[in-house]
């Protein structure tokens, strides 16, 4: 029954690959950024899954004895989420700028225009 114990990781890796596929294979730049977001949050899920302890509770102090989940991954991921939004904002700004300069956000059309130039 070992696969049950790894189920979270399997889902995480599937999501990670979905995001990767969107980034690599799809031509639309906005969709690429959505794919990047999927990839990011799958990494977050990976870290948080590692931090979980069986029968643990959220790492907020309780009276008496308690089992807490690992607070360290939570801290790292808090930072990562905010940085991720900053990346998204910057990427979208680039996309808007590309749209202004090329009139399209499809990758192959942008390439064609570059070849014509």
């Amino acid at each position, binding site marked *: 029954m070992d696969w049950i114990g790894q189920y979270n990781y399997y889902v995480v890796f599937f999501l990670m690959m979905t995001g990767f596929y969107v980034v690599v294979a799809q031509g639309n730049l906005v969709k690429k950024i959505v794919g990047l977001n999927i990839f990011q949050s799958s990494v977050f899920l990976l870290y948080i899954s590692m931090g979980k302890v069986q029968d643990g509770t959220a790492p907020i102090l309780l009276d008496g004895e308690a089992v807490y989940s690992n607070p360290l991954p939570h801290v790292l991921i808090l930072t990562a989420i905010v940085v991720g939004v900053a990346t998204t*904002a910057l990427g979208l700004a680039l996309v808007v700028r590309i749209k202004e300069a090329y009139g399209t956000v499809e990758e192959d059309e942008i390439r064609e225009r570059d070849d014509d130039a």
Partner: protein
Amino acid sequence: MTFLVATAIAIVRMRCLFAVVMLSGIYSLTTAGVFIILDAVDVAFTEAAVAAGVSTMLMLGSLTLTGHRQAPARIAPILPLTVVILTGVVLLWGTSDMPRFGDPEAPVHRHVAPRYIQDSPGEIGVPNMVTSVLASYRGFDTLGETVVVFTAGIGVLALLGIGGRRGRSAKDDPDDVAKRPTDDHE
């Protein structure tokens, strides 16, 4: 978790970008729910507020400027699919070495985490350990994070122009009209 997979697949298949952005919002919110189940409450509300809220707003904003439809793919995605599946198989192979989910003896839980859990309430005086680690032990990390966000903000302003170009379309912009004919001739 399975719902997450369904949402992700729908995002890959859809061509209407508005629906894709909405689905990515749903996806983030579901992730936040999963974080709560995994005991990461602080992460959950950051994800719900920042990722599901702010990201979706940003994406909607840029969609109004870039258009809603995605062009159909012109080439068969065989090479990317192969690369992706190969990477996925390698990663899955890697999980066979990972400790079981929720195992309290996993290496993650044996390094500095016990010290944070035992000593931080006494040392910092904040009952929420995530907060005390974030603001005190790893304060420089958080400072770096704010620097990153600040830089990104400056970058966005530099790319889009400070005078609020966002509201106008590219055609109304005097700069762009001046630039555009030369672009076409080149």
